[in-house]
């Protein structure tokens, strides 16, 4: 523990980082370094603008549940200028005859505009961005303005963008398959599901460094540690490829060489072949639809709610909420991924059953023809010869 206190954890490689966290526990680790993280936020003069699109504010709620540091701890001492966060600020949007009224001290719309005009900020986006109907973005309005318009303005002047949560990063539930999906046309900041060519930035023709903090919701550590690393310059925003995976997620939280399943608290049961058939047992949840083996996240190491629990620990299968394409790629949540229809409404099991069935029928027909009827024919031939 002392050794880790004397080390700059931002300079550790991922393996060492995970070793240290695993050895002393994520909670203790963050406890040790909480002052550093807070200090990182204190020392910096970086301005942050946090805007909300189509979302449930679950990621902000998750952020408020952060323990080490918690958000208020950081904000109390904040010389980081959290210029705008719609859920936390006191101002409201006030419109008179369709135009923002009063000043930025009272009117959040004016506050946002002024903050954007000043520039030099990190833009945090929570929620997806409506592009529909017909590219107008009118399915997500702020007063008289579309969120698409606000995002375009904010993204243009931003130094870097952090897309927090699945909605902002990949479209999330807003982009899930539905009858209205094409009409509403919600997009992530830089991606639409797995496709990096269909993000809102591509539509708007804006080129900015983007970090995707996946998760539904995003873990507070993922958000705050990434933010602190960016502010401290531990993450070079001009060389993000070195720290992000192919979907723009920080590899330290979303490792590319293992899955959630590898660090799951129920992993031992899987190893021993104890797989539950319902949700009430203590065994591995693979057969009730756990998507842990397909999910890249450090949930198993980091845990949630102050590092005391996580989905599978609480008895729920992992729903792969960190993977691009969520929720469609993980649906149905409570069925094995192999039970999902692949083609013509058939899953692997059905295809295989048909294949084996046809082959077995062929075997039976062949055996009857070659062994029974051939023998009968030979016997008849022999009798005729006699």
């Amino acid at each position, binding site marked *: 523990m002392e050794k880790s206190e004397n080390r700059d954890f931002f300079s550790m490689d991922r393996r060492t980082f995970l070793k240290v966290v695993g050895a002393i526990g994520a909670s203790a680790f963050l406890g040790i370094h909480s002052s550093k993280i807070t200090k990182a936020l204190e020392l910096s003069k970086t301005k942050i603008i946090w805007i909300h699109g189509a979302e449930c504010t679950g990621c902000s709620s998750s952020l408020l549940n952060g323990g080490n540091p918690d958000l208020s701890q950081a904000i109390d001492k904040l010389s980081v200028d959290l210029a705008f966060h719609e859920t936390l600020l006191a101002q409201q949007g006030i419109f008179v005859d369709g135009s923002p009224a009063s000043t930025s001290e009272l009117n959040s719309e004016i506050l946002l505009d002024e903050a954007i005009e000043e520039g030099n900020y990190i833009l945090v986006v929570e929620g997806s961005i409506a592009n529909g109907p017909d590219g107008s973005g009118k399915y997500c309005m702020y007063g008289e303005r579309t969120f698409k318009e606000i995002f375009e303005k904010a993204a243009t002047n931003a130094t870097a963008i952090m897309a927090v949560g699945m909605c902002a990063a990949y479209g999330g539930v807003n982009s899930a398959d539905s009858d209205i999906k094409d009409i509403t046309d919600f997009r992530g900041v830089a991606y639409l599901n797995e496709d990096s060519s269909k993000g809102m930035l591509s539509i708007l023709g804006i080129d900015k460094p983007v970090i995707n903090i996946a998760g539904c919701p995003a873990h507070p550590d993922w958000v705050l540690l990434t933010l602190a690393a960016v502010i401290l310059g531990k993450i070079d925003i001009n060389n993000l490829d070195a720290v992000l995976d192919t979907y723009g997620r920080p590899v330290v939280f979303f490792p*590319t060489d293992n899955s959630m399943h590898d660090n799951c608290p129920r992993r031992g049961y899987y190893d021993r*072949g104890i797989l539950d058939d319902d949700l009430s047992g203590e065994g591995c949840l693979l057969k009730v639809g756990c998507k842990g083996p*397909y*999910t890249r996240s450090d949930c198993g190491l980091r845990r949630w709610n102050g590092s005391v629990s996580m989905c599978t620990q609480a008895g729920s299968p992992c729903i792969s909420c960190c993977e691009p394409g969520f929720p469609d790629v993980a649906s149905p949540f409570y069925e094995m991924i192999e039970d999902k229809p692949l083609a013509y409404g058939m899953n692997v099991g059905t295809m*295989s059953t048909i294949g084996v069935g046809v082959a077995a029928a062929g*075997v039976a027909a*062949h055996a009857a023809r070659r*062994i029974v009827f051939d023998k009968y024919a030979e016997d008849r031939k022999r009798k005729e010869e006699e």
Partner: protein
Amino acid sequence: MEDKKIDKECPKLVSRKAIKMYGERHIERYSFLERLAHFAHLTALFVLLITGFKIYMGWEFLTYHAALNIHMAFAIIFMVANWIIIPYNIITTECPHCEICDAGGIRGYSHRAMHIARRYLFGPTDAKRVKQILLNYLGKAPYPAYTVFDVKNRGYIDKLHPMTKFLLVFEGAAVGLVFISGIPLYHQQWELLGIPIGHWILLAGDMIGPYFNLGTLALIRTVHLLVAYFFIIEVTVHVGIIELDPKIWKFHKAIFWTGTSDLCDYHYVDLINVDDDEPIAQKE
């Protein structure tokens, strides 16, 4: 004495002629390496299927780690058999010693390659044989001979059942797929001599997965499972349909033990170029 025995045991004139011409009654059908490759392939496949389904289904007869270790060891045996021994056997297989092949040079090697291709790849002759097999099921045609041995030039023209040849292409593709999908399941960032093969496979999965509404790792696991089921179907067809015939149990004996074929056993065998003057083709 020996001639009398052969005359008694060989009901077909062409067989007797062939034995006299060839000088031996038994000809090599499968070399030791061919038998070894087949046995290694078979054993490895069964072990891989059993341990693989243990890992997937969570069967209780082995621990996960034991199953994984056995699975990985036999995966290596499987790949060595399929990608080293079998290609070596194919390249070095004994072909008829025809004049063009014996002449050597580019033409000679090309001709030899044609011999090999005909022996292992499904072609027009095989399509005709399949048609005849189907007619045979209806009692409207004799079962075709699919093993063709050139007695004069001392080599097989054809050896395999047409359906075996048909399955070989899919089997080859399945072996490739199971290997490719197995790499990231073993280690997502697996490298060979610094080449990030695991990473490349994941990138390919990133591109293909969305077409099936699956994440990358889910796609890779699904493909691996699908190929496992393919092998079960293939084995069922191979053993149950093609090989389940008392008349070809001689080939079972040859592939697993003796490696030889009896020229007196005429079932499904054509002996050609038996006479210098007049080639004799014989069907059952």
